[in-house]
């Protein structure tokens, strides 16, 4: 492959990657229009943990505490005075951050988001470093002693 073709290929891949990222960002953040009250209740209760269960959301759980929280969420949604985030914040102000199934991105909770990225960067850096070292050691020159050893082995084999 010529140099010009290789550069063109790289630009194509870069463009494709950019388009894919842009589409993902657009798809993930676009406004899907007004939600019904039922949709809002479902969305809110899916991010609130049942305080008496292990790893279950209020949406899934049928525990008494979860039922009470679901009823309160329904009341607050019906009143129309709070946004979804404000209702989740209300529950956090009552039960503490343990009821948040999606950790906050501030304070100590931010470690949950930062540490995996940090670990990924470290792992990728280590891989790049290791691959580079392998390619350097692969290009080592052959010494006279090596050539002599191979020729000797060939002579012995005949």
């Amino acid at each position, binding site marked *: 492959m010529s140099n010009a073709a290789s550069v063109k290929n790289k630009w194509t891949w870069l463009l494709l990657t950019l388009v894919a990222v842009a589409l993902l960002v657009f798809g993930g953040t676009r406004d899907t229009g007004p939600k019904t009250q039922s949709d809002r209740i479902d969305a809110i209760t899916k991010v609130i943990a049942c*305080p*008496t269960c292990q790893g279950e959301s209020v949406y899934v759980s049928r525990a*008494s*505490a979860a*039922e*009470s*929280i679901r*009823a*309160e969420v329904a*009341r607050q949604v019906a009143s129309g005075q709070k946004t979804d985030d404000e209702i989740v914040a209300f*529950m*956090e*102000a*009552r*039960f*503490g951050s343990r009821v948040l199934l999606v950790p906050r991105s501030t304070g*100590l909770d931010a*470690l949950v988001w930062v540490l995996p990225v940090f670990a990924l960067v*470290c792992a990728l850096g280590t891989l790049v*470093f290791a691959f580079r*070292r392998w390619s*350097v*050691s692969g290009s*080592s*020159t*052959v*010494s006279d002693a*090596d050539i002599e050893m191979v020729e000797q082995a060939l002579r012995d084999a005949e």
Partner: protein
Amino acid sequence: MSDVSTDSAVARTRLAPVIASIVGVVMLAFLWVLVSADPNSSSEADSPLLGQPAPAVSTTTLDGENFVLSYRKGSWVILNFFNSTCVPCIAEHPELVAFAERESQASNPAELYTVINDDSDDAVRAFFAENGGDWQKVRDSDGSISVAFGVAKVPETWIVDPNGYVRLRVAGSITTGLLDEQLGLLKAQFGS
């Protein structure tokens, strides 16, 4: 070839302390997080509501009277979240009866209320008829009072000061001694 091997060995020798230091720092950070975390107390429990104005509560009692928490300002109020089938609630009940009897003889008694958590009126009436306790029992039919206070499991006991601020939360069974002691400390700190 020997040169390449030597260079590689030198690079490894230089890299090892760096990697070890990074791993060490991360491990120390985890250790610091664990050591600096607040230990969980078995009696006094933490809550975002401590030191905050008590949530608005407006309901009715089993006797059919209205109960509005903000109308109780001027008195220390004790809210005991209760269910007649919960074993720790049954176990702590004699302690509450003893506390209520002693408190009724005080010059400025605290007001004790049972908040009925996920239970029927008849079951609660039957329980109190059998086990004593003549203080008011307030309904929480839709669970809104429990959610407002962040109560997940009963029993839980909360103390609200005469200005309407939440001062104490006790998760689990309570004893007369603990209630007396904590109420005394709170009265000394925030005034009776």
